[in-house]
């Protein structure tokens, strides 16, 4: 073989994929390979190592380096082995790359120095193996660079370059590069990176997946994971195996593939138990528990967390213990057992303080705040969030800061302070963008949209929700997508586009079912039901609410259950089933009292009071006066505690009416006057007229005709101003009677 003079890279024919980036230090291996390839005695250099260890990347890097060096002037041919079926495939690629016809290949190869890179020799189907082998032989005297998982003695002489795990420095660098993308990592983050990399046995593919997870880039992670799952069987080192299983499981979990994740975690558990790796086991238990939690299997989740907790305590792992306490607390919270959740969080907080773990402390403060928020104790929640925020700022934890800003914003939002809420959300959004946290950005966009929605700016809300939705699709975040669809639907609903809203809800529903996300499903069913209800399809709405109810029961979600019961009651009420409505309201009230949610309790009580009033009116018509009275009095007791004066006056008027019918004229009079006084205060003209009419009639019965006429005239005038002609006519009739009696009296 003549040694041709070197050429510049641009002149060398090749079909190399782009240079790998990032690429971390593998100098040893690179030099070994290059030396081998440049050695005239060697025909083949083989890069051998376990799956995902970076052989392909390495081969590519080597090829590019050689390209730059200009050694193989004949050309560098990249053959991805898995695509090769026959010699024809190989010839095809060679033809195209070199720009020569089939017939001329032989001649070319003989006259030029070429390099053939065969990536993934071991991936070639058995049946094609011999074909490829033969062709490779024919390719000589070109040099061949082969990557393979196993050592294949295919050609000789072969120099084998073992490709092993990265050294620690390189692996940290890889992780950092993948995680941080464009920016510098803080030292804390670098440390975390080192830990993770170490845990993963410094295995490049595992590191890449993990980094992808950390970044929240699920789509890419998914692809890699698919790749990686092929190689599990190869791993002999149990540690690495467990680590990779764990990583794959996390990836699957993030994708929403819960059954897949569950399987992988359980496999991981097995290995960890074999290894006696308690720490790893408890971590896996935690992750599994989370899956069960998302699926709604709270009992199982609890059991696993307790198991994990026990291990942590045995290990004396306070940090881990407090994290698990937090997880447990979250479940109790979901169940509505707020007291227990509080207790656990406080326990966790105490540990964090003892450990001086500020980060953890602030996270737990956030959790505590959330509970107080749920209870309606907004002041306390605010105080806790501010405390947490201060810590985050001190720690320079931007991610955490933005999350806490979101929480604060939510409270202001609940209070109705929309401006402040907006300001905080924007601040948070800015941080998320700075951090490149797409997941968080999409969530914050959602929140912002909510505020715009509350302001009535439907267009603005729509825009933001759509932006958020686009992000979730980009991220492959199914959960987020289903939530975004839900929110979008709300805007359509508010616009009156029921069909559009329906469509979106159904899409969201489908996603929740795919995820096995029971909580989400219950929520969407609930919203769907509202649409049906608005459309007048009460039967349909009923059916959906009942489905949603069943789910909340399964979840042990007391708060959600109470809300659905409330809506169910309203439907029964709309259908005229007053007893049914009351029964359901009662059920809802009992639950709300259990969890202690004063605001919602009041809302339900008020809704129930309306039904009671209707029922009372029915009783009056049926002649069940004493029963009606008891109902109205029950209602009045409720209204006396609230501030809705009109509703209160309505009820007092009803009571007056019943007493009037019963003949308790003294009481009737007092009550009419009480109702009248309240109506005058709220300037409820209709109510004033009604009361005065009642009083007028009463006065006639009692014989005080002057008073009667005076009241009736006043009532008539009001009806006139209101344009209520029917009522005016009725009052006129009564006035006639009064005047008639007055005449008679005079005689």
């Amino acid at each position: 073989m003549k040694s041709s003079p070197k050429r510049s890279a641009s002149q060398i024919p090749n079909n190399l994929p782009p240079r790998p980036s990032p690429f971390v230090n593998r100098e040893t291996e690179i030099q070994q390979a290059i030396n081998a390839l440049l050695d005239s005695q060697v025909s083949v250099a083989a890069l051998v190592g376990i799956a995902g260890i970076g052989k392909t990347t390495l081969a590519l890097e080597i090829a590019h380096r050689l390209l730059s060096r200009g050694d193989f002037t004949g050309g560098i041919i990249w053959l991805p082995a898995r695509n090769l079926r026959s010699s024809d495939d190989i010839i095809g690629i060679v033809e195209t790359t070199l720009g020569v016809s089939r017939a001329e290949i032989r001649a070319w190869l003989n006259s030029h120095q070429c390099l053939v890179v065969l990536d993934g020799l071991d991936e070639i189907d058995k049946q094609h193996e011999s074909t490829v082998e033969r062709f490779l032989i024919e390719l000589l005297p070109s040099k061949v660079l082969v990557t393979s998982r196993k050592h294949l003695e295919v050609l000789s002489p072969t120099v084998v370059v073992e490709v092993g795990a990265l050294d620690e420095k390189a692996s940290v660098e890889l992780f950092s590069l993948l995680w941080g993308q464009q920016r510098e990592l803080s030292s804390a983050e670098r440390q975390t990176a080192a830990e993770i990399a170490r845990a993963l046995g410094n295995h490049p593919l595992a590191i890449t997946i993990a980094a992808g997870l950390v970044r929240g880039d699920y789509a890419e992670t998914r692809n890699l994971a698919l790749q990686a799952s092929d190689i599990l069987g190869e791993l002999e080192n149990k540690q690495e195996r467990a680590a990779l299983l764990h990583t794959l499981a996390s990836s699957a979990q993030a994708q929403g593939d819960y059954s897949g994740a569950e399987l992988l975690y359980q496999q991981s558990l097995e290995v960890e138990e074999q290894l006696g790796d308690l720490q790893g086991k408890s971590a896996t238990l935690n992750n599994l528990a989370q899956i069960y939690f998302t699926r709604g299997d709270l009992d199982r989740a609890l059991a696993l967390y307790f198991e994990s907790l026990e291990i942590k305590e045995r290990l004396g792992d306070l940090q881990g213990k407090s994290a698990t306490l937090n997880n447990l607390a979250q479940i109790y919270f979901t169940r509505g057992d707020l007291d227990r959740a509080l207790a656990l969080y406080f326990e966790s907080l105490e540990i964090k303080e003892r450990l001086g773990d500020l980060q953890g402390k602030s996270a737990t403060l956030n959790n505590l705040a959330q509970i107080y928020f749920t209870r309606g104790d907004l002041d306390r929640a605010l105080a806790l969030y501010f405390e947490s925020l201060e810590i985050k700022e001190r720690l320079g934890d931007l991610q955490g800061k933005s999350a806490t800003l979101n929480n604060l914003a939510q409270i202001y939002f609940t209070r109705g302070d929309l401006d402040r809420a907006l300001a905080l959300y924007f601040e948070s959004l800015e941080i998320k963008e700075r951090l490149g946290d797409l997941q968080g950005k999409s969530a914050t966009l959602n929140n912002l949209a909510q505020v715009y929605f509350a302001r009535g700016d439907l267009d603005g809300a729509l825009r933001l929700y759509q932006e958020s939705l686009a992000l979730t699709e980009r991220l492959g975040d199914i959960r987020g997508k289903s939530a975004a669809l839900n929110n979008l639907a709300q805007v359509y609903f508010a616009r009156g586009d029921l069909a559009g809203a329906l469509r979106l809800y159904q899409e969201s529903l489908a996603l929740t079912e795919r995820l096995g996300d029971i909580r989400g499903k219950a929520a969407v069913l609930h919203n769907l039901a509202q649409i049906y209800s608005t459309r007048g399809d009460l039967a349909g709405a009923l059916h959906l609410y009942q489905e949603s109810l069943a789910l909340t029961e399964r979840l042990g979600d007391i708060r959600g259950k109470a809300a659905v019961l409330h809506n169910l009651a309203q439907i029964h009420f709309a259908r005229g089933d007053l007893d049914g409505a009351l029964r359901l309201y009662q059920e809802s009230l009992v639950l709300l009292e259990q969890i202690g949610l004063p605001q919602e309790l009041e809302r339900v009580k008020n809704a129930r009071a309306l039904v009671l009033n209707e029922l009372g009116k029915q009783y009056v018509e049926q002649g069940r006066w004493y029963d009606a009275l008891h109902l109205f009095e029950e209602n009045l007791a409720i209204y006396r505690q609230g501030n809705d004066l009109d509703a209160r006056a309505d009820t007092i008027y009803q009571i007056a009416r019943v007493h009037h019918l019963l003949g308790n004229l003294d009481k009737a009079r007092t009550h009419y006057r009480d109702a009248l006084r309240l109506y005058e205060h709220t300037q409820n003209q209709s109510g004033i007229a009604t009361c005065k009419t009642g009083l007028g009639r009463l006065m006639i019965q009692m014989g005080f005709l002057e008073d009667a006429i005076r009241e009736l005239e006043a009532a008539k005038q009001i009806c006139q101003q209101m344009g209520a002609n029917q009522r005016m006519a009725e009052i006129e009739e009564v006035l006639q009677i009064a005047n008639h009696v007055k005449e008679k009296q005079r005689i």
Partner: protein
Amino acid sequence: MSEADGIFDELTDTLSRWGLDEIPFSESASSLGISQLREVFTGRTEELREVLTLFQGRERKRILVYGWVGIGKTAFILEILSVLQRKAKDTLATYISLPPETDLATAALVALARKMEDDEWAQHQLNLMGLRPRKRPVQKTGRGKAGIASIGVEAEETTVPVTSPRFPALSFEDLLERALKKYSRVVIAIDDLDKQDPARVRELLRNDQGLLKSGAWFMLTGHPSGLTRDILTSDLGLFDLAIELKALDQATTYRMLVNYLNSARSKRIRYNFDDPSAVRPFTPETARILCERSDGVPRWLNRLGSYVLLKAATIGADLVTEDVLQQGLEYAARQLRGQSGLTAEDYYVLDLVLEKRTLSDETVTLTDLERLKVREFSEILPILEKLVQYDLLRRLPSERVAQYEPTPLLIGKTEPKEEKD
């Protein structure tokens, strides 16, 4: 001799100077014996005549005695009962004050059963209801009215819970049947209906119509507001006679005062009404003022009289002069205001009425009510009624309005009398 002994002797001394064995008036719940009632019961001649006339007849009658608080309804029916007891031997008369949460039939049953102490079945009924049967009626210190307590009958303590039988009306009828075997006439007096909410009383009467149509005579006391007119004019036709007890006129009040004072004097001394010494230690003038202030309401006469004499005794006055009377009246006002059992809320309401001089469901404003932490007049009605029971307020007799004003007892000083409608 201790200081207390000294004080006691001093007081006894003063009273004996007045010619009294004791202060005959009562604050509220003490008892006067049968004989005492006979001594102090004054006036009501027409009303007595009306009622007693009925008792000359054979057919059973239902009588309603109504009037404002303290006007003497209980005394009246007890007087009727005691007359019957003395004069009509074939009559079984019994009295009960209506316990709270009890229906009329049960009350009637209890009253009758208590009187039939020899009847085993009757005693058994009492047992079932959780009441102890008695062998003999006991002079019990019950919640009498205006010092006139239960005579030879049980006056129920208001806090005794009675377990109603399942069918009280039927049980009553059974018992009545048994009673009518021994007596030609059974009279049941149920008192204190006016303590209950008038609406509830209506309900009670409605529910126990059958009772009132049974073979027993009934005397019930009632509340004038709303109840009476409706009961009488309704188709139910529950009562044969409704007697209104109005305020006594001045002359009668004066005579009542004399009777009270006489009842505390030694048996041999009984003054005539026109004898100035009859009202000793009052002077005729101060006696007159006292009667005026009492406004013809026997209860008020008792309360004022009692406080005035207490004050007079404390300062050791020989006579109740105008000055002493004044002091006594002021003392009364203070004591009445400071009665135990009044809560802070009660005082808020009382002060509002005092401030506005009168309070009604027509004229009260939302601001007034909000001061009292309420928004409805109905919410303070129970307090107003309570204050009436405590003799601090009175309700004016009008159906147009529910109007309350302070009683003359609260106004410490003597003021020129105002016209009332």
